[in-house]
């Protein structure tokens, strides 16, 4: 799975590591839904940490499409909510 961290770049994540990332992704979604800033901040940091740790960074000129897009490091809950709201428009 190719994962993009916004503002950072692409990582190739081995399939066996995918469930852990997906689990954190769910925690993140839950935090967004509940509007829980602290849980959100923690989950986002965990998610980025996990992708960097388990994934292999792709070279800058290795341009591929990704299947997962992780918000910018240090994003606030409001920023991500605003980004997700662009879905309709």
């Amino acid at each position, binding site marked *: 799975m190719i994962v*993009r961290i916004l503002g950072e770049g692409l990582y190739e994540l081995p399939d066996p590591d995918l469930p852990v990332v997906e689990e954190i*992704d*769910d925690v*993140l979604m839950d935090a967004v839904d509940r509007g829980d800033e602290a849980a959100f901040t923690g989950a986002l940091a965990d998610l980025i940490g996990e992708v960097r740790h388990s994934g292999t960074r792709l070279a800058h000129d290795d341009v591929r499409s*990704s299947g997962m*897009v992780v918000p910018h490091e240090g994003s606030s809950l409001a920023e991500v909510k605003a980004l*997700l709201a662009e*879905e309709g428009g």
Partner: protein
Amino acid sequence: MGSVTKRLSGILQAKANKALDKAENPADMLDLSYEKQQENLQKVRRALADVTTAKKRLELQAAQLQDQTDKLQDQAKQALAQNNEDLAREALSRRATLAQQLQDMGTQHDQVAKQQQQLEATEQRLSAEIEQFRTKKETLKASYVASKAESGIGEAVSGISESMADAGVTLQRAQDKIADMQARAGAMDELIDSGALPDALGGGKDDIQAQLDAASSSSQVDAELAALKAQVAAGSLPSGSASAGADDQEPK
């Protein structure tokens, strides 16, 4: 519903497709992509210059606030030396307010540094992508013209346009932060320039210094007064009061 990363992926994809809507055929799409990449790179470079300026400005302001903080600390010491505990307390409480502002500026500085880092990464990525895309697009265009083969084009364009959408979102986020940062820095500059910083925190321009100066000149007056009193006690002044005392005793 859904996950954050999947939804964001869909949003980024939609943005990427929208950017290329104007292309009439795959060959145009390649040229349009290339144009957009270059535009994006210019924008990212401008934002990077802005964010660097914002960071320097914050550092300058923090240094000014630090000077003020140190000065208030000195003033508190001087006030204590003059046994004026109330004034020392006032200086320290203003110092605490400034220290809080300094801390907030530290947080802002960290945020600007993070923006700078993300923009730098975006700039490097875009530069590398553009270089690679430039050669690839000519090859792909040639094969499209020769055989109408579109397969490689779609693949090349979808990756690059997603990356451009990422750059666009990152840029927007940075620009929002920069605007916010500039507004705050502007307000802070006005305060510092007008010399109103101590004013805004209560009191006159530097009323603490004025009180310290007044106390030190009044202690000089006290010293002179004491010297005069000592002279009077030693009887070296005209003896008006001594003769009045003698008159009192006369009727007895």
